[in-house]
């Protein structure tokens, strides 16, 4: 019998597809074929192996995303998968994951990581989309866009100023729920019923906080 490491790539891919199918059906499977295919694609930069991985795993991932994120249009799903796959390949080719089998002890772990890469791309996109949507809806957008490091410092300064203006920890917590998480009063109550009594309490405190912040010239300057 030919050792797995010496199998031609097309045969290896055939076995890997079979074993992956068993894995998906929760049957006993031998992950070594797939590990070797991943090893050739990632460590040896073997494009044939990379293409087979693409064919074996991306269709299932496509279906999974389509099922889980039903509001995302098909074209975008395709984009997210390709972007996720690109990140997966880049990460696993880094020295950090030199020994694939040591870092990912099971085939399930490798597949989970591939899925995670696609998931991260989607969630990152949704976070950015949320910021853009809010900005457009409210018309007001920051006047200056700084480089990311400066911008991060600027955000820290804004938050520090908010905390100076509302020194009470409960108020600060509520401000974070409102401005950082964009939670509605009902959601704030749902997640933090140990802190807030009812939505009325949240509404009144939120109105007071917004008034204090708007009246502060230093905070207004920081937003210019």
């Amino acid at each position, binding site marked *: 019998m030919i050792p797995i490491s010496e199998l031609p790539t097309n045969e290896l891919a055939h076995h890997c597809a079979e074993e992956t199918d068993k894995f998906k059906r929760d049957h006993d499977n031998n992950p070594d074929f797939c590990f070797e295919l991943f090893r050739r694609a990632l460590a040896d930069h073997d494009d044939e192996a*990379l293409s087979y991985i693409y064919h074996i795993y991306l269709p299932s991932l*496509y279906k999974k995303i389509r099922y889980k994120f039903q509001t995302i249009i098909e074209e975008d799903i395709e*984009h997210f998968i390709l972007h996720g796959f690109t990140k997966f390949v880049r990460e696993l080719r880094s020295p950090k994951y030199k020994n694939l089998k040591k870092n990912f002890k099971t085939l399930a772990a490798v597949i989970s990581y591939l899925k*995670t890469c696609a998931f991260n791309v989607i969630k*990152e996109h949704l976070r950015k989309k949320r910021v853009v949507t809010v900005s457009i809806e409210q018309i007001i957008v920051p006047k200056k866009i700084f480089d990311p490091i400066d911008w991060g410092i600027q955000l820290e300064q804004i938050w520090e100023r908010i905390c100076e203006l509302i020194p009470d920890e409960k108020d600060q917590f509520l401000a974070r729920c409102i*401005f950082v*998480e964009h939670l509605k009063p009902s959601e704030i109550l749902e997640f933090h019923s140990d802190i807030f009594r009812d939505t009325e309490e949240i509404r009144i405190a939120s109105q007071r906080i917004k008034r204090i*912040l708007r009246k502060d010239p230093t905070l207004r300057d920081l937003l210019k």
Partner: protein
Amino acid sequence: MVTNHNQPLTDDEIAALLDGTAPEALRRRVENNVAYQEQLEDAQFAAQLGSILYRFDCPSTEQLSDYHLKMMDPVSMQNIVLHLDICASCRMEIEELVEFLDDADEFDTENVVIQPSPHYTLARIYVQSVQARGSGRKARGSFKTVTAKANGLHVVLTVSEDKVGVQLAGQLASMDGTVDWEAGIVELRLEGEDEPRVTTVDDVLQFRFQQVQTTAVDIRLISTEGNIVRIEKIKLTEN
């Protein structure tokens, strides 16, 4: 102007006033009421703050998933634990990831083919033109060069033929440097082949495919940041 001590504006009314869809009667009510105007200004200011501060102190999605997969150092793990204590949004994001990774749901073996789509709505880079720039002969065989230009990106494709067969090599040149194409994925679809071939862009922004056909070639380039360039229906041979 009168000050009205009636009920404050509701969230829906404020939203309608801010996005300009409020009915005339409501706008008039606000114009004639100092308290409502103050409330509206508070809401506008809060919206501005919210648009800037949204998730500003949250770990990135990658950090959250690394935490879930236990792929980070203990100190970073501890920082995430502390953050999760106060942040419902991050807790929900991790719950969604757990659910997404759960294999006990719809996963089956039905063959879903990823079809090429006419365009992308995200990070779109339009291919402006695809034009032949030259051709010639080499000692060991013929070659042809085709240049594709997209916004800020030039793709030079060289087809050469030798004893092994036809090879396609690509060289990327990012003109404005805004997109890093290194380690990006290149997907090649050939007429008559059901599945695409895949390779990666190397550190000198080159890629290569062996044994290709030369008619109706589609190429997609995907950067690690998610930018996509499509070059469609390129003919790599002289008619």
